């Protein structure tokens, strides 16, 4: 029979689980499935060893689920790999958020990884991780991530700065309109990939704090990780330059869920 001991202090918790075969495991309170594990142990007279093992080995079980969606996923050494490359901390943290929230929408996470793999620049990918590492990410069903954009308070949600971009396929010069549903693009080779330059060419999106303080109205936009070009160093890495985004909605408060579905 499974026995267990929970140790709680002001600074944290730890749980030791002893299995009938003599093996013992200890995990910290930050383990992704700590709460369901404790719930199962407390509420079950004779806990199911396989269920407990599955909860403890959540990395392997999650990787199994991801592998159902993409053969490019592998799991070794406690790390999930995509195309043989270990996931960045920011992406693993997002996965842990999904597990903790009981959100099994792994399809969009895999779609995100597949989109990310299409980004032609390793430098751009690393800069995106810098942007993501400071904040939690929200992903759309088609594997894009959510960012924010500050615009002017007018019917067209026009951009604060003027420039040249394509709006829904038509060329536009001046303050770029950002109507809900519009797809804004510009050629990738015209977007500056120099992270040391703060204000330069490119479609700019940012964090909630940045966008909300920058513009008179704040939009929620989705960006394909494939289209990310650079993350400028100024403004504490809050901005992001890309070559394409889709305007989803006008909002008044930031999203705090790992997944986003259009209303």
């Amino acid at each position, binding site marked *: 029979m499974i026995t267990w001991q929970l140790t709680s202090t002001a600074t944290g918790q730890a749980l030791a689980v002893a299995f009938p075969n*003599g093996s013992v495991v200890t995990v910290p309170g930050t383990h992704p499935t700590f709460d369901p594990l404790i719930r199962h142990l407390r509420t079950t007279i004779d806990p199911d060893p396989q269920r407990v093992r599955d909860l403890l080995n959540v990395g392997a079980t999650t990787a199994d689920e991801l592998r159902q969606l993409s053969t490019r996923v592998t799991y070794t050494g406690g790390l999930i790999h995509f195309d043989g490359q270990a996931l960045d901390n920011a992406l693993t943290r997002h996965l842990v958020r999904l597990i903790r929230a009981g959100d099994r929408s792994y399809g969009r996470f895999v779609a995100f990884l597949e989109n990310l793999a299409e980004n032609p620049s390793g430098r751009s990918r690393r800069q995106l991780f810098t942007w993501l590492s400071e904040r939690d990410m929200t992903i759309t069903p088609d594997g894009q991530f959510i960012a924010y954009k500050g615009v002017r308070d007018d019917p067209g949600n026009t951009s604060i700065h003027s420039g040249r971009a394509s709006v829904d396929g038509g060329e536009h010069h001046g303050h770029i309109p950002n109507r809900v549903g519009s797809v804004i693009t510009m050629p990738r080779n015209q977007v500056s990939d120099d992270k040391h330059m703060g204000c330069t060419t490119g479609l700019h999106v940012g964090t909630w704090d940045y966008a909300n303080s920058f513009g008179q109205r704040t939009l929620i936009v989705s960006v394909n990780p494939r289209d990310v070009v650079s993350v400028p160093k100024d403004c504490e890495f809050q901005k992001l330059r890309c070559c394409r985004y889709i305007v989803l909605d006008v909002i008044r408060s930031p999203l705090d869920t790992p997944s986003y579905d259009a209303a």
Partner: protein
Amino acid sequence: MRNPTSGVVVEGTLRADSSVAMSIDPQGMAHIMGVLTNLYSDAPLAVLREYSTNARDAHQAAGIDRPIEVSLPTALDPTLRVRDFGVGLSEQDILGVYARYGSSTKRGSDEQVGAFGLGSKSAFTLAQQFLVTSVHDGRCTTVLFALGADGIGSVSVLHRGEAQEPSGVQIEIGVPQPHLVRATAARFFGTWPAGSVLVDGATPVSVRDGAVLTCEGLVLADPQSEVTAEGWNLVMGGVGYPLPRALLLRAVRDKDAPEARAALGTHGFRSVYATVPIGAVDITPSREGLRDTARTVRAVRSVLDALPDLLATEVQAELDAAGTATQAAWLLAGYQRALDKHLLPTARLTYRGAPIGAPVTVPLTTMTLTARRGSRGGRELRVDDNLLVSTANMRDVLVVTDTPKGAARNHPARRYLTQNSDGTQWVVFTADSAATFDWFAYGPGSPVKTVPYPMFRHQIDEYSTGTTRRATVYRTLAPQDGEPVERPVPWLREQPPPVVLTAQFFGSQVARQVFHDRPMVLLTDRQSLAGLIRRVPGAKDGERLLCDGARHLLRNLSDYQRETLTASVIVDRFEQTARNIDRVFGRRAQQVPGMRRLLADYQRAQRICLDRARDRTLLISAHHTAGTPLPPLRPEHQRQLDDLLDRAPLLTALLRAGQLTDDELDAALAYLTTALPNAA
């Protein structure tokens, strides 16, 4: 490691009436345990260091060569595991070592690192529990150590049975923040001897990888490496301890100062790892740093004393192993760049007994660029008949061989010297393919950079677009052009004399307005004003002209422009206040006459600014270019604004108060109505 407080000898005739040995109050045990557990300032480093050095000590004691194995925690599997393959511990040993503070089996020996009897409990600084699984004499024992309700740790033996695994000990700790342990591990295991540890099944990156120089007891590491620490580090038993700079400088002998002190701060020594024998220096009980004791200073001094000889011996061996004198000099040149001359006495170094590196005069046509006096970054080509080459500059020399008689040299050399990215500063032309001058030789087998003349010309052409040579072009903005265009010199000669502007002003609206009848040129880093004037006579430095033009523009403003400028100033000064008023009072602000008038003025100014954005930008840029401040507000505007700004604390307080009740809002409005009498 031997305990530094052991071996105390007491001698004398003092007699006391009574004598009692000092001890720990049993009531204070939990407190003392807490102090001993939390004595680490870097908890992840402490845990890694204590358990992995214990594991290595176990291999040392058992005479085992295989590496210990460390499995780092991850977000999905947040457990740190450290496994050794020593003889293991019996149940009694586990309880003796891990359950008692101060208990250590290593004090009598300098072969092993541990001594304090504290490290084996350091897991409690990170976690509330840890597991010890030991295989000893074919028996497996698993013990859980956990913090108890009384603050004193509790020990539970969870499993005893036959072992299937090889003997040894495994420690498992559930780590709350795995990423911190992973980041620390990369640097910590960088100093471990090769083959002593496997981290996640692989050999960790070492400070020796990519090092400038590695020899017995010393590594001059690559400061850019992610596993190296800056400054000096002493490595004892595989564990690196940062050496404080004050301690390092105290160890410098007086006769060596100040040269040695200066040398210790040079760029080549940004990351040094010197190995000392176990027990040679004193460390703090937390084992996080070195103690500043006479013994530690002596140990550092012996490292410093041995350094020049050690380096000279190591470098000398490499020089002697080189195939030719030129190759040896090439190697020496690399070390000279990395090491200070005080620490690497090059005068003592030879190549197979012959002095090396003394300057040699090479009688070949040499070209280099020198700064031209008074020009804006322009440089001129200097041609010499000889090259004075030494180990200091031989890596910056390019020898162009097989140069035909009468072949162009000046222009290609200048082009190469301005555009190469390999650090070349001297281009030497010769008709031969190989030659030797004392120790300096070029040609096959020599490391000196050499290129045949045809290939050199091809490379010059590559700097231009395609493979054809390109005429000099300038980035030009003509009055009628919308975007800058690269124009050749002949085109510029046909236009009115161009002006040269920096990127800051090039193409700005002010420049377009002032220079509406002549082209503007933006020089690249490699172009000079002198070069432009030589090619296009009449070209001028445009920034002074632009400044004068901007002042002229501002002196002759039309009423339309004056109104635009006033509106711009009002918006700039009033914007934040207007927003605050709107956020606090909303539509009710219209009830206060003074405020109503101010808001009306602001909104009118805002409309003007939006409608005339382009003119507004021009006028503000003109002020910026001319270096003059924006004009003040008209007196009546200024007075109203000052009145309102005087109430700024009140507005701020109202803002902070958040949602006001109707009564509070009425009171605030009534106050402001009386506070702005002249506006009413």
